[in-house]
């Protein structure tokens, strides 16, 4: 309070009794003329787009909606696109986290196997990988029993001990297995796992090493510390890019055609479009479905980010405040990437 009676010398109005002290700031804001120009230009483009959408006959909106709800299209949407995405992502995330943990393990064999996996499946284009999946049956021809599930090297062991048979439990038709939706899901899933491994590894590494030490000091085993302390915190970093990966996977299910799997959204829509000589409305119908699914996924992603952001969103009067804020920014950035 004493400072009010001793104003700084040289300050305008300072010291003089009865003179008014500077009050509320009421200034003229900076003008932004180019913003107006930008809005006008954009408005012109939007108006043209609306006119194109409403008046151009080629859209054939009636046909678009009719195609969207055809039985084979709905079946393709459900099977290839939705079920395919769900199971490929389950496989991808599960294997990805496993490979991330292996990669960070002290065991050099585990670590190198994980590195090799990532290297291999990241290098091969998804389309090519799915094509290979479809032809993989050639390695296990039916004439020699197809794909055999049994004791490893069972045929050699049987031969060694002079036994009949090959110690197998059952045989599968590899051609059928690999060139089905299951084969496609395996292909998409292992390809995804290579990317998820890197995402999960980054997430695990983002957790302060002190967290693991604190867990150890409480008497937790390494596995429990990973499960209870490290992974829940890593999830905050893992979820946003995983959301992006899931949205990308929805779109990549259109590659299932390479297997070939034809109960898939884009193939079915295109087939109808080709039959009717109305390719464009068919493409629009597919786009609308992809837009709808990806919008729903974005809602799920926001919910997941909230769940795993627990304890990080709050105002933080601590040395960790800055770090938490940076992480929040990073998380938010990833989320925006999905928009």
């Amino acid at each position, binding site marked *: 309070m004493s400072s009010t009676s001793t104003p700084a010398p040289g300050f305008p109005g300072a010291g003089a009794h009865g003179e008014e002290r500077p009050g509320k700031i009421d200034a003229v804001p900076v003008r932004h003329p180019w913003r107006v120009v930008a809005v006008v230009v954009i408005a012109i483009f939007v108006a043209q787009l609306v006119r194109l959408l409403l008046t151009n006959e080629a859209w054939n909106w009636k046909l678009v909606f009719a195609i969207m709800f055809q039985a084979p299209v709905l079946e393709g949407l459900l099977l290839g696109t939705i079920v395919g995405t769900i199971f490929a992502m389950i496989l991808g995330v599960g294997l990805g986290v496993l490979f991330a943990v292996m990669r960070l393990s002290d065991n050099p064999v585990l670590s190198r196997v994980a590195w090799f996996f990532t290297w291999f499946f990241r290098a091969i284009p998804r389309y090519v990988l799915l094509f290979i999946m479809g032809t993989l049956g050639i390695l296990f021809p039916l004439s020699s029993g197809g794909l055999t599930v049994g004791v490893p090297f069972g045929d050699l062991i049987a031969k060694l001990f002079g036994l009949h048979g090959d110690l197998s439990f059952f045989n599968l038709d590899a051609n059928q297995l690999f060139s089905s939706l299951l084969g496609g899901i395996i292909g998409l899933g292992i390809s995804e796992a290579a990317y998820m491994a890197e995402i999960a590894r980054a997430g695990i590494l983002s957790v302060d090493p002190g967290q693991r*030490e*604190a867990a150890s000091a409480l008497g937790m085993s390494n596995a429990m510390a990973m499960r209870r302390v490290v992974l829940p915190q890593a999830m*905050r970093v893992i979820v946003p890019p995983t959301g992006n990966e899931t949205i990308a996977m929805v779109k990549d299910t259109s590659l299932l055609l390479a297997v070939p799997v034809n109960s898939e959204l884009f193939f079915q829509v295109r087939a109808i479009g080709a039959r009717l000589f109305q390719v464009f409305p068919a493409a629009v119908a597919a786009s609308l479905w992809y837009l709808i699914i990806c919008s729903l996924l974005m809602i799920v992603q926001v919910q997941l980010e909230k769940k795993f952001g627990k*304890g990080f969103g*709050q*105002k933080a009067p*601590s040395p960790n405040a800055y770090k938490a804020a940076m992480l929040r920014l990073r998380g938010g950035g990833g989320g925006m990437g999905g928009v």
Partner: protein
Amino acid sequence: MNQPLVHAVNVHKDFHGNEVLKGIDLDVESGEVVCLLGPSGSGKTTFLRCINQLETIQGGRIWVDGELAGYVEKKGKLYRLNDKQIAHQRREIGMVFQRFNLFPHMTAKENVMEGPVKVKGLSKGDAAKRADELLARVGLEDRAGHYPAQLSGGQQQRVAIARALAMQPKLMLFDEPTSALDPELVGEVLTVMKELAEQGMTMIVVTHEMGFAREVADRVVFMDGGVVVEQGPPAQVIDNPQHERTQSFLSRIRTENEEYAEALAIRTAAEAL
């Protein structure tokens, strides 16, 4: 039968050829409060971390409560314990870190409950009751539902102490528990530690707080260059150090403290103006 709670003999530790501990001998009796002093790089924090096996030692032996840390000896041969067995040994030892290391995704109460529930298999109800008692003991019963990011540094450190106590340890290790705190928050943490000492907890404290060491410690151990230079009652080591290295360290600390006190006094005076 009257063995010390911590019995460390000829402990050696090196990080990639850089020798940090060069043969530490230290016994800590049950109920004793020992403060480890020394310049940074003297190995005091490393030695503390060796006691609960956050670091593995390359030579010597450490026994905690009569149990050899990290190994079992059979017919004169040492066998390394596995991850789970080492985790089991650590249950007896509570540790408080310089940077608190609370679990940020759990509330204060969940932090305190985590060990008893997940490691000891206590029921959630019992663990919650114990957590409430412990949070009250460190004066934070009204912060049970707060996440660490919503607490001040001093409050976080007190929760961390409660979390360690929830495992009902025989020994508490403190690794510079007040070094990361704003000066005005140091007192509340030291008060909790002092109460703990008065209740008879065995404590090993790495600290630069001379006032705390003088007042609370039964014994002060001065380390430098990976060896114990001098040890004894605080009155002897702090006020009448025998060794030249201890003397120079303490005078340096004193100068720093005086400079700090002076700066604080100037700031306080400036604020009052």
